[in-house]
């Protein structure tokens, strides 16, 4: 099989393992960010992590560890600002994020061997230069992040879904939010060598955007997102070797291609079903005895006449059983708008 010879290269083995780790971890944390409509937080933390990388380069410490420290600190700061809920919160976040990039650029300039080229590996990813030590750190972080997201999944879901309700039922909402912020920071660091700090959010968010288009439950969304994450990160890493393109960019473009395909498919499915299915939400009304619509026996079930169409209840929607041709009695109840 062509392409398998790539696996003989150590750098490629490490790259694919890193891609796999990111493909699983990023979407499983990102789903809660999407759920809370905080999709851009990951991006911001990527910026903050840049200062950490520069600190590592400047002090000769492993950049992965200093980036982790900075991203965690940044994540906790973001959460504290968010909880305050002031009108200026988004501006404060912007300041923090710009500060992250600026700090990174200035610090790297101070380091003796520091050239802008050094930063490029972190900004845009350099998966093929991943060292064994990096890989070890990524693996530990990924396993930790996954253990927490799986173990606390119901709680993370409840808090992301309805924070106020979670607080009223006695859950530790502040603690859960800080935990999610720390998980996000850890994921940022795992992803930075693969897709780069500028694209970090993409792997957390885009697979979930795909799931959003096609899934009908949270659980299925998570499975789809992880499948898409693994697929695009492994395929993208592999393909980039042959196309000689930047792996990070290739992975993200692949993810976006999947997203566009999913959106198109969902659109087609909706319009095809749209003519035949009506959900109560778009209907603004549930059919039932006494709903005001005349009930008409139709084989083994009852249809409700709605603007001359026979609506049959089928799960959460109505199947349109066509135009009713039986003469409508004179005293039909008033139709609902």
């Amino acid at each position, binding site marked *: 099989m062509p392409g398998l010879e790539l696996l003989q290269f150590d750098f490629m083995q490490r790259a694919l393992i890193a891609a796999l780790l990111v493909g699983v971890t990023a979407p499983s944390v990102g*789903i809660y960010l*999407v*759920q*809370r*409509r905080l999709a851009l937080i990951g991006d911001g933390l990527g910026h903050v992590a840049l200062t950490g990388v520069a600190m590592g380069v400047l002090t000769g410490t492993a950049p992965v560890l200093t980036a982790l420290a900075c991203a965690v600190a940044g994540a906790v700061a973001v959460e504290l600002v968010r909880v305050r809920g002031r009108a200026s919160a988004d501006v404060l976040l912007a300041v923090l994020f710009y500060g992250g990039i600026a700090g990174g650029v200035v610090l790297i300039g101070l380091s003796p061997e520091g050239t802008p080229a050094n930063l490029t590996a972190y900004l845009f990813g350099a998966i093929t230069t991943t060292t064994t030590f990096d890989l070890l750190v990524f693996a530990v972080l990924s396993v930790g992040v996954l253990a927490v997201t799986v*173990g*606390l999944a*119901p*709680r993370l*879901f*409840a808090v*992301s*879904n*309805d924070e*106020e*309700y*979670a*607080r*009223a*039922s*006695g*859950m530790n909402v502040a603690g859960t939010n800080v935990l999610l912020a720390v998980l996000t920071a850890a994921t940022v660091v795992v992803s930075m060598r693969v897709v780069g700090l500028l694209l970090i959010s993409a792997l957390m968010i885009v697979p*979930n955007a795909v*799931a*959003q288009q096609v*899934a*009908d*439950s*949270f*659980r299925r*969304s998570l499975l789809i997102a992880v499948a898409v994450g693994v697929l695009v990160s492994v395929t993208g890493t592999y393909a980039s070797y042959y196309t000689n393109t930047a792996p990070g960019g290739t992975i993200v473009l692949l993810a976006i291609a999947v997203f566009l395909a999913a959106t198109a498919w969902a659109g087609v499915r909706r319009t095809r079903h749209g003519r035949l299915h009506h*959900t*109560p*939400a*778009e*209907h*603004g*009304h*549930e*059919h*039932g*005895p*006494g*709903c*005001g619509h005349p009930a008409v026996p139709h084989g083994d079930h009852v249809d409700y006449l709605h603007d001359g169409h026979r609506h049959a*209840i089928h*799960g*959460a*929607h109505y199947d349109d059983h066509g135009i009713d041709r039986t003469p409508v009695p004179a005293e039909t109840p008033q139709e*609902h708008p």
Partner: protein
Amino acid sequence: MIILTPSTPLLIMVLMTNPPSAGPLIELRHAAVGYDDRPTIRDVDLRIDRGEVVALVGPNGAGKTTLVRGILGLARVLDGELLLFGVPAQRFRERHRIGYVPQRHTVGGAIPSSVQEVVSSGRLARRPAWSRATATDRRAVDRAIETVGLGELRDCPVSILSGGQQRRTLIARALASEPEILVMDEPTAGVDAANQANLARTLADLVTAGMTLLVVTHEIGPLLPVLTRVVVVEAGRIAADRARETAPGDMSASGELLLPQTGPVLAGSGGRPSGPARGVEGAEL
């Protein structure tokens, strides 16, 4: 049409999980409730006993919602005392005994979630943080979904449900923790007439099963058959607190007397020189 489950299993559920205890479920003494350090409502003396169905009415901005949010721990009790099941609120750890149905027109975040998933999140109040759902947990969730008549729709994403069905999903979420009292904020707002009747039937079933209700509402109508007491909030104070004298279920007698009389109060009695509680004091509740 979704068939409403008979209230028998629910009755068993309520009685089995909540052995009746003496004393009020909720008690406020000279309480002031608000946000930061500013009370929105003050001098509140309110006591809610088991089996009561209390409507909290009053004009917008009067402090009704702040009052219930204080009970739920979402607003601060700045002065006085709040006792939940006889325990001071700051030491109260059994939040699952109070079910909360927020005022919300839509359920869920940006990721699709099924009815079953949303309702299950209500069960967490009774589950330790790292635990998996047990068979008991799953049964409680199933019962809650059946009680509100959403059995057929359990695997549907909540986002495609109608307003009334979404409201019933939120009621089921509150029921999943097997609470002894339900606190509801405007349960019928934005729900069309047919679905209001449906909701009212669900609430009546719950009351029959022994549930205590505290309901913030603008529309007392759907609650009339089961209502036992009306508390009127005006301008940050409790303006009237009347138990109903006629038996619940006596719609024809109480309904006609109650509605026109409380009308001016509900509408905010704009510009009328009457005392704050006039409308209700005149009513025979």
